């Protein structure tokens, strides 16, 4: 384990240790926050009893669908917009202010469109996740060295071949960033949608626990969501480092 990784572990553990001390000592009251160990204990029983299995299954399925659609549609849109400079000039300012729009306020509209099922939530996840992929795709395509495009022509590659064999691998580091952000935003979109408006899923379970003053359950679920987001992120980070190590030693 590297020095940096050890320090990171120390920071995270230290944070929870301080929180544990403050809550145990009563510096933070039990109505505000419960000790992390109590959160973990409550989470453990919840996982063992299977009381959040249904919520988990629903949330994960929605996130997975939203993520897959985000990446596919976002990449296709990025490729199209990159090929049309006039469209690009219009979209740049829109993409720059995109994340200021609280899209989940359109949840009622989405229910009117799709009905009361999973698709309004998937749509919110998609609306959040796709833009990150579009932006990353544009970034990646912008940074493909012109000499590699010339190389493709020098080898007589057609348009599709050039994209598949040269442009995509060259843009891969940025596309990977897009993948990571897209997953994170799909997750944020789905959970936020559930939290604010929906009647099921992990996000709703947190809101429900909050409304019924069930702090242990609420904090246990928060811990779960946070741990999930961080471990997904960490796993993708490690995978990315492995994949990119050989090309970035310049």
């Amino acid at each position, binding site marked *: 384990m590297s020095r940096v990784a050890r320090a990171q572990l120390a920071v995270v553990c230290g944070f929870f240790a301080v929180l544990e001390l403050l809550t145990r000592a009563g510096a933070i009251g039990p109505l505000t926050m419960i000790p992390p160990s109590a959160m973990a204990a409550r989470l453990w029983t919840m996982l063992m009893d299977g009381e959040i299995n249904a919520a988990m299954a629903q949330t994960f399925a929605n996130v997975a669908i939203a993520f897959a659609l985000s990446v596919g549609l976002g990449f296709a849109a990025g490729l199209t917009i990159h090929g049309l400079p006039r469209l690009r000039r219009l979209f740049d300012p829109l993409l720059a202010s995109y994340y200021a729009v609280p899209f989940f306020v359109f949840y009622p509209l989405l229910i009117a469109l799709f009905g009361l099922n999973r698709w309004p939530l998937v749509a919110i996840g998609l609306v959040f996740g796709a833009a990150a992929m579009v932006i990353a795709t544009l970034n990646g395509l912008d940074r493909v*060295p012109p*000499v*590699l495009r*010339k*190389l493709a*022509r*020098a*080898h*007589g*590659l057609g348009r599709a*071949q050039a994209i598949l*064999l*040269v442009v995509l*691998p*060259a843009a*891969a580091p940025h596309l990977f960033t897009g993948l990571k952000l897209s997953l994170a935003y799909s997750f944020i979109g789905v959970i936020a949608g559930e939290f604010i408006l929906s009647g099921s899923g992990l996000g709703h379970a947190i809101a429900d626990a909050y409304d019924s003053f069930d702090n242990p359950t609420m904090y246990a679920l928060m811990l779960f969501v946070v741990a999930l987001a961080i471990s997904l992120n960490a796993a993708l980070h490690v995978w990315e480092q492995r994949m990119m190590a*050989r*090309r*970035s*030693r*310049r």
Partner: protein
Amino acid sequence: MPATGDPRARLSGVTKVFDTGNRQGTVHALGPVDLDLAAGEFVTVVGPSGCGKTTLLETLAGLTSPSAGTVAFEGKPVLGKVPRGIGIVFQEDASLPWLTVWDNIAFGLRRAGLAADEIRARVDYAVSFMGLGAFAAAYPAQLSGGMRQRVCIARTLVLQPRLILLDEPFGALDQQTRLLMGDEVLRLWRETKASVLLITHAIDEAVMLADRVGILSARPGRFIELVETGWPASRSSRIVAEEAFGRLTAHIWSKLRVEAMKALGRVGEVSRAGP
């Protein structure tokens, strides 16, 4: 059918005018230029910066179409596509960072749809010919700039081109490495019997490598003179010690000096006028 009398490549009255994008005008970058490259001939082109050297090479390759004039490779017109039989080595590092050295060199062969053992034989040969044996499994990121440029040269070599175009291939390398890489290119040229056109801004490199040196004027580039060097095919970088080398270099510099000053003066005008 290419007539037997056709040169390997021919540029006739080639001119390139770029549209600057804003309607204020166009830039006359090159020409008119005429050049015949004989089979097996090594021609280098020197010229001041911005004289259209790279445009000349890309027009010959079919990467850019000329505004006027014609380009022919082995008697057939070159129209908007790079013909089979022409290999190009670019000025910038064009190694593909996601492929190993071996796979980089095999890149073009795989596109050409050759049998696997033919590909293996040719790549293995090129790897050892370019002295890359110890690095076949390495990624470009682990190599020096000179080594990476060797990978790009090897990638062109395995396609067995009949015309090799090199655009300032050693521009980013230090002087000593450049002379040694020049030796490699000469060795490669003798081995493949291909025609070579090499663009450079270094006069010594141009003189040492070439059968003929083309001197381009400041923009728009036109040939001021095509100088025969008279070197034997067996030449190497040791030629720099010869008296004739000094004479040729001095002659070319006397022609180029004025053009280089024009190119500089142009820069001065622009900066005085402001953006």
